Each structure stands twice: as C-alpha cells, then as structure tokens.
C-alpha cells in the first residue's frame, strides 16, 4: 500500500503480515494483501494526520469543506484504546481522532505533529522535544504538557517485569543498545522534555518509538496507576467512548461505534493543525479535514461491499484482484491502482527438524518446489496480474533490487523440477514410475494455509496439483490466522528433547534441530512480511539471520553472517556502498532461496466518481511520485480526495 511520503514509526516497527485474514488486519505492518477489501489505503498514511485532510499546494481554494464520506471496510478495529493498539485497522481509526506526535518528512527532516520540534544533539545521544502550545485534551484535562508525556513513559511504557502493572507490549522499543538499556526521559519545561539515549543513534529520527506512540493525560492515568488497576483504566468511558478526542488533537471527533456495522466521525473544527501548523512545505492544512462526516461501513461479505460501491452507497472500497477487471470501464466508479505495497508474500518452507529434511539440505530441492509452484502463473492467474513478481526479499521497484542476471528465476518447468528433485535428494529417494518415492513410500508433503483468502486458496490448490504432477502427494490444511501463528509459525524448544543452545523468542526458539513448532508442516502459504524497502536492515536481520527474532523457518547458511553483514551495510559510509552491499545480499538470498519468493501485491481502490483526487502532486522522499496512485481511467497520479465541485 502506498506509504506516502512518510512511513509512520508504528508501521515500521512491526514486521509480520498475513495474506489470509479477511476481517483481521495484519497484526503488523501494512495489513493484509490485495485480496482482502482492506482498510482504505489512505488509512495508514498517517504521519501527517491522515491523507484525506492534507491539501494540495496550489489549488486549495477550489476545494470546499463538506460532504459525507463512506469507506467500505472488511476489518474491525479491536478497540479505541490508544494504549492497546496492535493492528493497523485500530491504529488507522484512532488516528482519525489523534494525530501522531510527529514523523520524518525525509531522511533528515522532522515533520511536526503534536511535537513542534524534535532535535537530536551533536553526538546523537540526546533528544529535545517540544510540544505545541494549546493542545487540548478532550474532557476536562486541560492542555497537553510535557508532564503528560513523561508520566506515561515512566509509568506505563517503560515498565517491565514485576512493576509492570499495565502490560504494555511495546516496551522493548525503548530499550536499546547491546545491553538493552532504557532511554531516559526528563521534563525540562511546561512543554519541553528531554530524552537521554544510552547509546548513540544517528538514525534515531527513523527509530524513535515515541513518534508512533499515543498517550493520555497524566491526571487520567495517575489514579489507575496508583491503584494498579489496568482493567479499570481500559474500561473507563474516557477511553471506550473516545472522549479523549473531543479536544483539538485530531482531524475528527468520535461520533459513534455501532459494532459490526459502522464507526462514524465528525469533523473537528478545532483541529490544531489548522492553526498551529497551517502551511508547511507544500502542504496546506488550514482547512483540513475536508469531509463533514467520515464513516467506516463494515462488511463481512465482500460481494455486498462491491455491490454497494457500484450503486454509490459507499464511496470507497478496496477491490480484490479477481474483481478489478469488473470495475474497469464501470461508469460510476474510478479505479486507483498502486503497485507499491511493501508487503512480500512467499511460499514458506520449513527448514526445521519437523519438516522434510531435503528442504533444508538442498537448494535444488527448493528450486524444484519453486518450479512446481510457478510464481509467474500464480501472479497471472491467481492474482490476475495484479502483483509485482519478486525473486528476493525486496520489492522489484525498491532501491536495492539486484539486476535480473543476478537473480534466480523459476520458469515453472515440471521436467526441470523433476531433475532438480532427483539431483537434490540422496539415493534413498527416486522416481518409481510417476511417483516420487522416499524411504517411507511415496513422498508426502503437508501444506498449511490461512483461511478467508481466495487467492491463497487457489495458489495452494494449484500447488497441490502441480506437486502431484511431480509425483508428490500433498495435504492441505486451512487454519485461522491465530491458529496458524500459534501452532505452525511459533516454535519452541520444549518440543524437542534437551536444552537449546540459544533461544530468541516465540518465533525462534532455538536452532533448527532444537526448536520446532507444535504442528508438523512442510509448506505454508498466506504468511508474509513487510520489507521497509528504504531501510530493509531490520527486516532482513530479523528474518534471515540465524538468530533473527522472526526466523521461524529455522533458516541457516554458511556464506554470510547476516547479523554482522547487515550491521556493516546499514552504517556504511556512503549510499553507494550501502547499495552495493545490500544488492549483493539480496542476490545471494535469491540464489539460496530459503523460501519461494512470489510477489508483492497491488492495492486497488475503487472510488465513486463524485470523489476526486486533489490536484497537484508532490512527494519529497525516496518513494518518489510513483508511490502515489495512478488512476486507470485518468492519467494523473493523485492520492488525496475531496468531493468534486458541482
């Protein structure tokens, strides 16, 4: 999905995505893949307070405030609690009532939000924050002060272990450096406070978790903190009725939430940005937001949502791949297609001890499976061409994508796959007639996939058939996302005798032979990752390094110490150096093919014709103009919407 000109800290942090769960946003990153009619893509572009309210530079005068906007959404927010945000749907909704504290408008420049300024000291060890004046809380809590921020930091966010009365889950991000020491915060004035970093972090602007964090007034939190009553605080109507948003902190105020049906917001006339920030760079917030009311209409049945888009009963809906062709040429809707989703989906292969050993042992065997899977046909047929093919852990439009000759391709040739299979396995394996046999008889592989996603379903059925052409039997199990995570993705040393040499977390409980998942699997579909194409270090390090936090497959290899390599690459002296190092790495990944890279999905949104993109374009970071939507009916790229002038 289009990242716009800034990637919010919230998204950057989280890595794991699902291609499966319609109705459950990704637990992290950029939510689900193209097939789900997901949250309207403008949702996550929230660094500047949401896409739909930023104005165009030159022709703002043409746009007027007014009108009702209805978004169709297939997912549900889990709450309105700013402290308990774990998925992008929830964060996108809350973002309508609360801005983010700030972001980065390019690699060096701070983009203000609630924070008027953010200054990193010379040695990159101290940060000075200053809040805008006159930020008002909803309810009777007065204005936002530095005290509010630091109180939340010290009493909610930074606590660990025994003292942790609240159980906030993002604590780790505030503990940095090789010894995991906490960042320390101190109030220095009514609206200013300071952070002291235990280690020097030149890139902190892009890593500061506070820029993606919300907080509530100290006066509100204190009584609950003193009583240690997390449950009470979560159930307080200040949170459940989103009273906190009734001040001037966000573009909209919360109106109502009819569960399983709608969530409605009304325009906040006092939105602080209009006065405090106004025009900045080439963005003009003086009149934002442009809608009088904004409603998210939930749909559980995607065919109903699309019917509603056709009749104009909703104004905007994401369109699944298979249906895009129906909307092309439709008179009452216009389509916006963006190929710049940063999620990567692939065919996961189990390298751990409870998978099929040759997968781990032999590259050729992996190639064979890849040829059976035939990613290009899958893209063409299952995704209707609406996906960008990938050959490595990086999108093909990204800056570090190796050239074609440095990548391994998979033509989808069954004959080739056959010979690769034979070459890659020991003498115990071989073909008997049409069937591929191993020591236990015909080889059988187990596949598991997520439910609720037609493309994943088609892909898995196709793979099963292709594998049988290769002489391999396979079984498919469909599991809910949470079950998939728990029983297949997560692994534990408890499932293997003996103690592990090391253990990193729930997704990497130990080396491949010392930690396995609860359930046996060989191939998994529907699970992917976000790549942060412009800063892929942490993604690569956490997934492909042997001790990476998310290395659930148990992948290891001997050629690179990925951890070290990434460390060097990310701090290399010049951009060219970084480029050549990362490209080399990605080329190797393509060659070693730990899993079968498939595609990065498109994001297609349908809009009612009465909605237009705000004219004028700009983006000032590496994503370039292409990160915005390109319409199919019209040639101009645009991203922002307002009602057409009659």
């Amino acid at each position: 999905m289009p990242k716009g000109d800034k990637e919010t800290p919230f998204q950057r942090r989280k890595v794991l995505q699902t291609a499966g769960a319609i109705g459950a946003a990704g637990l992290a990153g950029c939510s689900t893949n193209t097939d789900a009619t997901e949250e309207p893509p403008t949702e996550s572009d929230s660094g500047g307070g949401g896409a739909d309210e930023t104005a165009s530079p030159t022709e703002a005068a043409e746009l007027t405030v007014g009108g009702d906007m209805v978004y169709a959404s297939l997912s549900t927010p889990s709450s309105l609690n700013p402290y308990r945000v774990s998925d992008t749907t929830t964060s996108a909704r809350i973002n309508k009532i609360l801005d983010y504290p700030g972001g980065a408008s390019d690699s060096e420049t701070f983009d203000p939000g609630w924070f008027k300024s953010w200054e990193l000291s010379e040695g990159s060890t101290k940060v000075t924050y200053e809040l805008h004046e006159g930020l008002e809380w909803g309810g009777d809590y007065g204005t936002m002060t530095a005290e509010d921020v630091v109180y939340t930091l010290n009493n909610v966010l930074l606590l660990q272990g025994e003292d942790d009365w609240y159980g906030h889950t993002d604590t780790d991000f505030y503990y940095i450096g090789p010894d995991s020491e906490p960042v320390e915060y101190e109030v220095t004035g009514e609206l200013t406070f300071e952070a002291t970093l235990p280690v020097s972090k030149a890139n902190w602007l892009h890593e500061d978790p506070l820029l993606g964090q919300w907080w509530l007034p100290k006066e509100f939190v204190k009584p609950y903190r003193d009583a240690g009553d997390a449950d009470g605080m979560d159930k307080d109507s200040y949170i459940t009725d989103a009273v906190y948003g009734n001040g001037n902190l966000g573009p909209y105020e919360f109106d109502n939430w009819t569960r399983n049906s709608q969530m409605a917001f009304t325009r906040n006339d006092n939105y602080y940005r209009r006065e405090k920030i106004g025009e900045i760079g080439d963005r003009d917030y003086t009149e934002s937001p442009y809608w009088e009311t904004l409603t998210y209409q939930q749909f559980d049945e995607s065919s109903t949502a699309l019917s509603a888009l056709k009749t104009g009963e909703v104004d905007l809906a994401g369109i699944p791949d298979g249906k895009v062709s129906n909307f092309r040429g439709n008179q009452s809707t216009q389509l916006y297609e963006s190929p710049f989703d940063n999620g990567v989906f692939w065919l996961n292969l189990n390298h751990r001890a409870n998978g099929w050993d040759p997968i781990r042992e032999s590259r050729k065997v992996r190639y064979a499976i890849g040829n059976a899977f035939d990613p290009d046909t899958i893209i063409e047929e299952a995704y209707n061409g609406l996906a960008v093919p990938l050959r490595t852990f990086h999108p093909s439009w990204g800056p570090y994508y190796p050239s074609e000759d440095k990548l391994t391709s998979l033509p989808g040739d069954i004959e080739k796959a056959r010979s690769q299979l034979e070459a890659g396995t020991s003498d115990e394996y071989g073909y008997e007639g049409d069937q591929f046999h191993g020591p236990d008889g015909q080889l059988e592989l187990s596949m598991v996939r997520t439910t609720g996603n037609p493309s994943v379903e088609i892909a898995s059925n196709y793979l099963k058939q292709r594998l049988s052409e290769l002489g391999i039997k396979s079984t498919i199990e469909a599991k809910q996302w949470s079950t998939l995570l728990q029983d297949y993705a997560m692994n534990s040393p408890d499932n293997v005798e003996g103690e592990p040499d090391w253990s990193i977390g729930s997704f990497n409980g130990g080396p491949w032979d010392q930690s396995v998942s609860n359930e046996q699997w060989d191939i998994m579909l529907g699970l992917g990752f976000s790549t942060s194409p412009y800063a892929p270090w942490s993604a690569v390090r956490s997934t492909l390094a042997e001790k990476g936090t998310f290395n659930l497959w148990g992948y290891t290899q001997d050629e690179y110490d990925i951890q070290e390599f990434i460390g060097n690459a990310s701090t290399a002296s010049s951009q060219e150096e970084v480029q050549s190092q990362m490209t080399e790495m990605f080329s190797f990944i393509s060659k070693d093919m730990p899993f079968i890279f498939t595609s990065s999905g498109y994001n297609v949104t349908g809009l009612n014709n009465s909605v237009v993109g705000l004219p004028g374009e700009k983006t000032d970071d590496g994503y370039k103009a292409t990160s915005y939507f390109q319409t199919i009916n019209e040639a101009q790229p645009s991203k922002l919407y307002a009602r057409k002038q009659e």
Partner: protein
Amino acid sequence: MSGENDYADLTFRNLNLDEEEESTNIQVTAGSLGQILTLGLLTVGYLFDYLVVTENTSMFAYMGSPVLAAWDVSSVDWMFMYTLALLLFNAVLPLYNNPRLTGYYWRQFRKNRLAVFSGWIVIGISLMGLLGPILFDPPTLSLTDAYLPPVGITARPEGTPISGVWKYPLGTNHQGQGMLKLLVYGARVSLQIALISTLVATGIGAVVGATGAFVGGIVDEVLFRYVDVQSVFPVFIFLLYLVYLFGAELYYIILIFGFFSWEGTARLVRAEALQRTEEAYVQASEAAGASRSWVIGRHIIPNVSSTIVTVATLILPSFVLGEAALAFLGFSEPGTFSWGTTIAGGRGSLSTAPWISTIPGFFLFFFVLCVNSVGDALTDAVDPRGESGE
C-alpha cells in the same frame, strides 16, 4: 428330538423339556446373514485401513492390487458404505419381502403425482452421485481455463468476452475446474452427507424413542428430559464452535449433524410407539419370554418404521443445506467438491460469472425440493387417517 414319527406319541408325559434344545433368539434368515457378513467385511476393511495401512495411502495400493489403486478410502467413504449396507438390508430388503405392504404404500404414494415426479429426480441425482465418480476422474485445476461460461454462451466474466467450449460443457469455476465434474462429484458428497447424517439421526432417534416408549418409567423420564435439553441447545452455534476448535473435516461435520438432530425423531417415534406398546402382539411377545431389546427391535421399530421413514425424508434436506451454509461461512472442509462449497465459492462472481453458483444451486434446489416433496407424500401415504378407503 428323536425320530420322525415321534409327534404322534408326544404327550406331556414323555416330553422331556430338559432335553429340548434351547431355542435361540436369533432367527437366521438369508437377509440377516447377508447383513452380518457385509457389515463384518466392512468393519474388517475399515480397521485394516485405519490401523495397518499408512496414512494417505490407498488401501488397495498397499495390498499391491492394481485395481482401484488410486482410491484412498476416506472415513466418509467408509461411513457411506456402512450406511448403504444398512439401508439395503434394513429398508430395501424388508420392503421386498413384504409385497403387500409395499404395494399399499406405493398406491397411496402414487396419488401424489408431483411426488412421483420428484421421486424420479431424486433417484436420478442419486444415481449420478453414486456412479458418476466411478466413471469420471475428479475435477482438476486449470488456472488458465478459469471462468469459462457453459458451451454456447458468451460472457464477460473478466471484462473480455469469452465463449464456452465443449471440453467444459457447463463452464468452469474460478479455479478452472469443470462445472460438470463438480456437479457429479458434488452429488456424491451431498448424497453422502445426506444419507449418513440422516441414518445416524434417525437411527438414534428411533432407538431412543422406541425404548422410552416401551420401557417407560424412569428410563423414559431421563431419556426425554435429556431430549428436552438437547433440543434447546443452539446446535448450529455448537457446531460452529466445534468446527472452529477442531478443524473443518467432513466426517466431523456429518457426525455432529447426525448426533444433534435426533430429538425430533425420538419424540415422534415415541408417540407412535406408545400406541404400539399396548397392542396384542407386543404383549404376546413379552409373555413368550422375549427380552426387551428383542421386542423393541423386532416388533416396535418395524411397526413405526413408516414414521421413521417420513421423518428421515423430512430432515435429510436440512443436512445438505446445512453443509452449504457452513461452506458459506468458511467452516467446511477445504477442497471438498460438495455443492455447498462450489456455490459458496462462486458467490462473489454472481454478477459476472453466475453459472458457477447457479448451476449447482439449481441442482441443490431441485434435489432438496424433490426430497421434501417425496417426504411429504410419504407422510400422507402412510397416514392411516388419510382420505383413502383402502
């Protein structure tokens, strides 16, 4: 007994009861022998497949037989064979052995012309389900052939016009599987679901109902209090929950349907059986020393069988539709060829590729409609209060 002419000399004085062979309670007829043999064979086969043959290998291949080597008999298939066997020996055979009664029912039934017509449709579809999969290979995926309309029709499922081809006479679905094959295989699956669940439900219901009615007293109280509780239990919710917990596999679904739908049958059977228990032949049987289970099995149940049959035809359609509903919610076994799954899979394309949902939809509709119609007519036919004056 001793020699041939002994009967003439037989008086009470020289009848030595102790020497008489005890008459066994088991009357061995050709029918019951056949049934025991068939069921026995099936049981052996099932145990062999389950315990000895490695998972996901065809039993036949395991034994080295080239015939049927591709058929990995599934649990549902085993249950289906059991069901067919039971039906054959306990429903078809008795009808065959009782031409007079059968004739009577048939004449009554025939009066409802709609029902007769429906009956033929039911038989037709059942044959399609039974024989079709033997004659055709299973549907295969062909992503390049997806969304083809039926032959002779031109449509624009994806924007550009395409015409149907003879290779896929009824078109293809979103995965390129042929609709005709899906229909045929779907008939088999739907038939399996229908028959097995119905047999389980009516079987349990009949036994419980008859036992409660005949034995009476506290057994009756306890049984029917339980029936009350089960009948208020929101079964569908329970079903969803179990499927959610344990995974969606067809044989769970079938069994759960069966195990939770017998209350209605039990009640109806009980009502009927209550009338029968007072009849002379039952009392005579008891007097002759028959055990309770004997009386229930041999006298009561056969005489309420008409009720059982009508109830069966009335609940059968709900199982097929129930599976379709589960498929819609995403709770059915992935990869089955049931009509429900096919219809549910095509629901997103109803405006562009309506044949995917509509063709199996019509078949499902007709099948269920006809079964309902037949069931209704049977109810009429066996109802002694009816208009006829036979």
